[in-house]
């Protein structure tokens, strides 16, 4: 049960990190 909490946290933070990386990259490519 406990491990599942860690799994959920990893999925949430990793998804946010990748999505925001893509967002920043998009902004940067528009600026360039």
């Amino acid at each position, binding site marked *: 049960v406990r491990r599942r909490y*860690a799994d959920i946290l990893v999925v949430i933070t*990793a998804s*946010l990190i990748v999505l925001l*990386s893509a967002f920043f*990259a998009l*902004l*940067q*490519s528009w600026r*360039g």
Partner: protein
Amino acid sequence: MSRVFQGAFWIGVYLLLTLAPLFVLLLGPAPPGRGFWMEFSIAIGFVGLAIMGTQFLLTARYHHATAPFGLDIVYEYHRQISWVAFALVVAHPLIVFWQRPETLRLLNVFEAPWRARFAVASVVALAALIATSIWRRRLGLPYEVWRALHGALAVLIVTLALAHIALWGNYVGTPWKLVLWVALTTFWVGALVYVRLWKPLLLLRRPYRVVEVRRERGDAWTLVMEPEGHSGFRFHPGQFAWLSLWSGPYDMREHPFSFSSSAEYRGQLTMTIKELGDFTATIKGARPGQRAYLDGPYGAFTCDRHRAPGYVFIAGGVGITPIMSMLRTLADRGNDQPLLLIYSSKTWDDVIFREELEELMKRLNVKVVHVLREPAEGWQGERSFVTQETLKRHLPADPNSRDYFICGADVMMDAVELALTELGVSLAHVHSERYNFV
């Protein structure tokens, strides 16, 4: 502040720290015409590095940040997120090779510039760090050696990655970018200094003294300790601390053990440790007067955190330790709630705290059910393992009217958790903690 809010706050801090390098992308003029994929590749490279840098913070055992989750979840997250960091730093060059195939020549470390060599070395070191962590036992690495190697590799990975960025030069050119990188690096180094230098110094100033080493049933030993020259710390029953016994806090030889004593008595505290190998086999050799250092308390496995009309404790072998702390504490508090202890041991002679449990039955409203794997002839009680049928025979009619604390071997906890859910117990009522830190 509620635990949920605290947890959300620390997740926000974590995201801010890992995403901070992305702001570097937006500072100053953008390089023209590189397109989304090249920028994305750089972004995930930065973020991969920031995740690795922030790993130092996750294992800094900072009380405020770990409390909402429990240290076991933070360590599990530390392990799993390293895979995400690895995927990002590997994807970073792969996207570059895909977009600009001519850059593949940078993999030739004999002719490539140093900025590329540093990058390759950093990824190789990261792969080595992950491999030595997954296969530590298979590689025959003692815990202390692994821990020293783990720290050294982590510093090497981050240093090499920073050197790669510095030599590339595109993202350190302007003063603000430089400030951001220096601030982040200082933060990561600060976490390392805190863990390896500052915290051990604090522990050194608050030593404990071994006053007794008591033999228990089932090849277990109870270490009784007293604070030396200070008032000790308060803990919640079920929590644990990292114990350094044969060396000072600057050494790598510290191991996590639950307290077995009552949280209500501050003069002495005890840890009960079963002889299982390496460090645990040395406990019986400790002598009264010997110094010990305790880094704690940690852990969310405590009845203080989960108020309920009654509790069911399910223990296997030495997993009784944190549960014994809860039972002793509840007895000292004059608790009269309905309690049930289902306790699995190998034989009747191996039942740790057997006599004291009988005494506790007089002070608490507790029913103790022993489950023996190898019972003697004529044993009338439960036998074999804690199964769904065992639970069904002893749980109250409404199993969701209790909170459950499970502690034992991983395989036992998995089986009991599954059995409880099949009996209709909501997972919100089931608590466990896993000490598999390596």
